């Protein structure tokens, strides 16, 4: 259409795009069973993306009309999440098949780059879309390529080609776990006894406080205290469960949920009972379709089986955004919005989901609760090493012989982890350094390999344990490459809301590509990011950068 014609054409319709009747029909048919709830926007986008392989703008327009939202409100959300592909009128839909190759740290160490190169030059690359994606939570099987929804472990170009040929695009379906949980582990017995009045809320909270259990998503807020704060708020109260572990190197939540989702659910029920909440949402990252299905099955099983009242339990699907693991960004996402972290105050315990007081827990935190209450806090407390107390799940990956999730005493050092659990370094690799808490927890040299790994023990080194994602690297690797990978990851995953993080991560990543790092400039960026970012992503993003300048100066400077 010529410019003149385009201009003239718009006088013959109301302002803005014209709604296409065919697109309206598609949306009406697809969402016939749904109510146009704003908070379900992301679910609706998934339905459209699943059905049509992309989000045609005309469909989005029809969706906007159906939901009584402005076009741009749909656009904002759809364009925020990486798992949605918006296609403009007349634009081309992506190829029917996507392979997502993880290029985060553990996979990078295991040759993700070579895999991507091989795939991009392979024969099938034309009908295939190859996407670099951040951590998909299978770092123990690096490198990982996800074909459709099917994770290909220790992927090779041949393995990917085979999967394409055989159209292996679905995820594994996990088997039902209710019977095992109820019969073998006395599942739901403790919750039932709570309902029966055998335990008081006070007793339960005291037990949790006594155990010293802290939030295991990364921030480490004491669980018992959180419940007390929630109980002080005026209801209705919500519970939101964060199953969006996206910190590179973290895969513990996936593993425990693959094994036993009911333990989480019982923890959730006990929490709901304790804080008198009737509505719970489980937010599951889109990279974990098997877990999402298993959880849905578990909830359905429980609903059928239970002879007691249950709170409402909804399961929501993320859409490819690390930032939604940030507690308030997750709430925004559950409300059907862009995953923008909120500013505090108010804290989400006061004003959280839909403006109501909200208890948010990481999956593992809830997972521990039935066990702790059943067995008492004593055993948990008595565990621990190097002067620390409790048990932790460490996601161990990188250059070790046997990566995996290990339940180990809190305070264990990385050397002990490598030797006892990881069965030592890979052959031919010499321990050089490690990341104690994923991409954001900083980088430490082998010389600090005996520091106890726990909450509060790493601050003095400019690091933190976070979700206990320990990535080990060797003298064949460069700390600066790992730091650059981390900074690129932050730039990719920054929500873009605040200046320091949006601009700082991009600029830092550019500067970190230089052979000799401009230290002063980087330090200035780091200061602004740390001091002025809205959320933990931007505040912690300089950690790996600073650690390299501090512990590995030879890699980036003159000396």
């Amino acid at each position, binding site marked *: 259409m010529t410019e003149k014609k385009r201009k003239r054409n718009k006088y013959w319709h109301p302002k803005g795009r014209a709604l296409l009747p065919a697109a309206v029909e598609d949306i009406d048919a697809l969402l016939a069973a749904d109510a146009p709830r704003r908070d379900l926007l992301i679910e609706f986008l998934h339905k459209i993306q699943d059905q049509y392989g992309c989000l045609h703008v005309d469909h989005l327009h029809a969706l906007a009309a159906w939901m009584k939202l402005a076009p*741009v409100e749909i656009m904002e959300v759809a364009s925020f999440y990486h798992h949605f592909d918006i296609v*403009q009128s007349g634009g081309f839909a992506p190829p029917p098949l996507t392979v997502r190759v993880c290029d985060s740290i553990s996979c990078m160490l295991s040759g993700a780059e070579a895999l991507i190169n091989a795939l991009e030059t392979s024969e099938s690359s034309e009908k295939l879309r190859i996407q670099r994606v951040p951590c998909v939570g299978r770092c123990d099987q690096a490198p990982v390529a996800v074909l459709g929804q099917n994770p290909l472990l220790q992927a090779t170009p041949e393995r990917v080609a085979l999967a394409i040929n055989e159209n292996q695009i679905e995820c594994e379906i996990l088997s039902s776990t209710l019977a095992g949980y109820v019969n073998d582990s006395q599942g739901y017995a403790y919750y039932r006894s709570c309902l029966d009045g055998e335990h008081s809320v006070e007793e339960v909270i005291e037990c949790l406080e006594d155990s010293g259990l802290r939030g295991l998503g990364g921030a480490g807020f004491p669980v018992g205290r959180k419940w007390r704060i929630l109980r002080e708020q005026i209801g209705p109260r919500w519970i939101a469960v964060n199953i969006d572990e996206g910190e590179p190197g973290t895969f513990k939540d996936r593993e425990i949920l693959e094994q036993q989702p009911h333990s989480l659910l019982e923890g959730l029920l006990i929490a709901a009972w304790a804080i008198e909440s009737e509505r719970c949402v489980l937010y599951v990252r889109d990279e974990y379709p098997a877990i999402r299905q298993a959880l849905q099955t578990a909830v359905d099983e429980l609903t059928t089986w239970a002879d007691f009242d249950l709170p409402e339990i909804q399961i929501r699907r993320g859409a490819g*955004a690390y930032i939604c693991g940030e507690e308030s960004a997750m709430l925004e996402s559950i409300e059907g919005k862009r995953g923008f972290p909120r500013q505090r105050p108010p804290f989400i315990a006061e004003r959280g989901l839909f403006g109501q007081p909200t208890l948010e827990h990481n999956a593992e935190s809830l997972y521990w609760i039935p066990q702790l209450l059943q067995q008492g806090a004593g055993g948990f407390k008595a565990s621990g090493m190097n002067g620390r107390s409790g048990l932790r799940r460490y996601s161990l990956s990188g250059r070790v012989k046997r990566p995996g999730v290990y339940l180990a005493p809190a305070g264990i050092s990385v050397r002990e982890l490598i030797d006892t659990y990881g069965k030592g370094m890979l052959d031919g690799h010499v321990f050089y350094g490690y990341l104690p808490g994923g991409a954001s927890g900083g980088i430490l040299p082998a010389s600090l390999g005996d520091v106890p790994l726990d909450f509060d023990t790493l601050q003095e080194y400019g690091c933190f344990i976070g979700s206990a994602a320990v990535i080990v690297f060797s003298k064949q690797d460069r700390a600066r490459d790992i730091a650059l990978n981390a900074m690129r990851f932050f*730039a990719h995953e920054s929500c*873009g809301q605040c200046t320091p993080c949006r601009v700082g991560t991009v600029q830092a990543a550019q500067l970190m590509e230089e052979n000799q790092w401009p230290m002063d400039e980087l330090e200035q960026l780091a200061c602004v990011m740390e001091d002025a970012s809205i959320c933990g992503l931007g505040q912690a993003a300089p950690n790996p950068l600073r650690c390299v300048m501090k512990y590995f100066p030879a890699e980036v400077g003159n000396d």
Partner: protein
Amino acid sequence: MTDIQFELNGQSVTAGAEESLLDVCKRFNIEVPHLCNHPSLRADGNCRACMVEIEGERALAPSCRRNPLPGMKVNTDSLRAKRAQQGVLKMLESTLSGNVYTLEDELRQWQKKGGQKKQEQKKQGRQKTDCEIVHKVKAGAGVVDSSHPAIDFHIDACILCTRCVRACREVQVNNVIGLSDRGGRTRIVFDFNDLLGDSRCVGCGECVQVCPTGALSNKNGVDMLCADKKIDSVCPYCGVGCLLTYHVKDNQIIKVQGRDGPANHNRLCVKGRYGFDYIHHPERLQRPMIRKQGVPKGLNEYFDPAEPLKMFREVSWEEALDHAADTLLSIREGDGLHALAGFGSAKGSNEEAYLFQKLVRVAFGNNNVDHCTRLCHASSVAALLEGVGSGAVSNQVEDVRHADVIIVIGSNTTGNHPVAATFIKQAQKAGSTLVVIDPRRKGLADQADCFLQFKPDSDVALLNAMLHTVIEEGLIDEEFIAGRTRDYDLIRQNVADFSAEEMASICGVPAEKIREVARLYASAGNAIIFWGMGVSQHIHGTDNVRCLISLCMLCGQIGRPGTGLHPLRGQNNVQGASDAGLIPMMYPDYQRVDGPGVREKFEAAWQALLDPAPGLTVVEIMHAIHAHSIRGLYIMGENPAMSDPNLNETRTALTQLKHLVVQDIFLTETCAFADVVLPATAWPEKNGTVTNTDRRVQMGRRAVDSPGEAKADSWIIQQIAQRMGVRGFDQSVPQVYEEMRSLMPSITGISWDRVEQNESVTYPCVDASDPGQGVVFVDTFPTDDGKARLVPARLSAADERPDADYPFVLMTGRMLEHWHTGSMTRRSRVLDEIEPVPVVDVHPQDLEQLGVMPGAEVVISSRRGTLRSHARAEPAMQRGEIFLPFCFVEAAANLLTNEALDPFGKIPEFKYCAVTLEPAE
């Protein structure tokens, strides 16, 4: 509000608990850079330029988002705070191209200030103001979206502060601008990443007004021009009464900005912000003119607004005024005291309206003075005067904040009162329930919680069904009815056979929805009703409003904030012009011409004998001209040859006049019938007060000189009066206002000086200490017995219903960009670029059935006339109904309209007549 004591940069200070730290800093002249923060917007805290250090907190805090707490220790200039503030500014700068698009680039200003301290230490030189610095825009200016006629978007100057997003979404509630993508790829988009000019943007320019860097800026680089002066005034368009500031350079208005007036809080709409340049149009009349000998009257080949000298010859003011006045005088003497009439204008000031009606009454010797109120809300005023004793609104628009339920009926508020609509939309977003009742699904309907798309002409049926529902379901406020109303029984009996179920098919709305709305309204804590011309412009317009009054009274929804009746007034000064007496049956302040003792009062004040009989209304005057009983007409700023119904008749009437004097700023279609044309001043060229829909008296000020020999309207009126030999026409504008005030009890407390000082004062206002009463009828109504009178209404059909010959219903009205007959807005570049051609709104399926593509020409005919227009496919229409705006001279809608009148308000039925719609060959 409790005061908080805390420490700011080592000083103990006191602040309100709700005050942001940034605002406290501003109050103490402590400069903290800030970019995403703006006084008219919700604090967002995304730019992170205003970070401060709070003792005991790990990270810094954005001062715009934090309130003080007792004992808090805040530091704005610690090393850390400064490092973050300057670091953020530097980061933002690094993302920009360096091109400058506005003199008021806030990022540059903060950076300059940051560097300033160092400079000051070096040399104590005079700081240059922005205007003195010549900005060199870097070559190869950045990517620009210039698709919109008024607004450019330079993405290379965007700092993603989201001020525009909040302005568009939360202030104007238009929701066109948003953020797309994330991280470093985050960017501002319109709709689905469309060009601004292709988006749903309505051009209000709020985004431009708040943009800190000129990324969104006014077209043609006007933001880089330095104004010679800035003049505070009022918008010349609709009755909302937005306060604004004219930026003037070389006697030209270069741009307009919203000001914090009580009715607009800095907001403007596309007309107010971009529709100012009509005053500089080359077709402005600059010299008085008299019709050339032998040139026939009418819209004939001699008529050309661009070349008036084909029809007229230029004369001196002396000659023009003498000729105008002498002929009027000779008609008065030759054809009698009732042979003259005058149309005043709701576009002028109060003082002009007052002078004009005084001229007619004193010099013409009769009460034949009217204005366009007759064509818009005459029926509303008739019903309100009859029912509650006052024709003005009971509550102001801003009251929507307090309303639990808001009903908007027969009003395309987003198009015709755009800034008022923003407050309604905001209230809905904040939780009020919005009910929209209209045959067209336009604007507000999209945001309504409940939308009734009823059939045109079925207002009485619908409203009576609601009355029936509230009575039947026991939802009425019996105490209110007993104490404050009379004749309730008449209503009860009248609506007995109007059940929602019976009326549903007449209205085209399911009975349950009618009942739902009735229940919502009746059971609301506070509920307010707004209406527009969709209610009033019917032959049963008065009945429609009677029903609204009854509904309001039965439910006791009046006399409190957030309740009441609000007919949205059309013209900028239609309230004021009516108040000032520009109506044939009333003197100023609605004192009846035939009321006891009233005439005597005005005869004493004006030192003249006055006609005891009420005069004729607009359409009656046209009929009287036809009948040759009126021979001379003086029109100030009205355009009946476009605005009156059944134009062929109206235009024929105008040719019958012996003498027509037209005073205007352009050669309007009405001038084609004039004997004398007097060049007048446009609104920004004069001083005077205007009264908005909320009863706020506001000050308009002269910003530029008028072109050529054009003169102020008040001067012209006074000159004619003097030449007609009457006294009392020699005062200055403030003196005229003060004379008016002495005769108008409702504005007693509002002196000229007070308006000059306060910019806006609400009446009724009894004395200088009275802040003005925003809510009226609190305890009583200004009727004889203090009670509201309830008047029943029966069903009556439109004068002309569609039939086999004329199957479509035609509704007329305005569109957002064009004002009334288009004389101003079609001469505004931006407005005419957005809507340049006549369009008729037709339902897409009707078009399909006719085999007409959108944009094709159609012929529309009624029993009275025919015209051609382009068809617009408009899903907001119902089948069988079409809408034609009356602003296009090429397709003058009023050629088709029916002049049948409402018997009480004498308002023509602009909203309903039968037409055919056919493809043009």
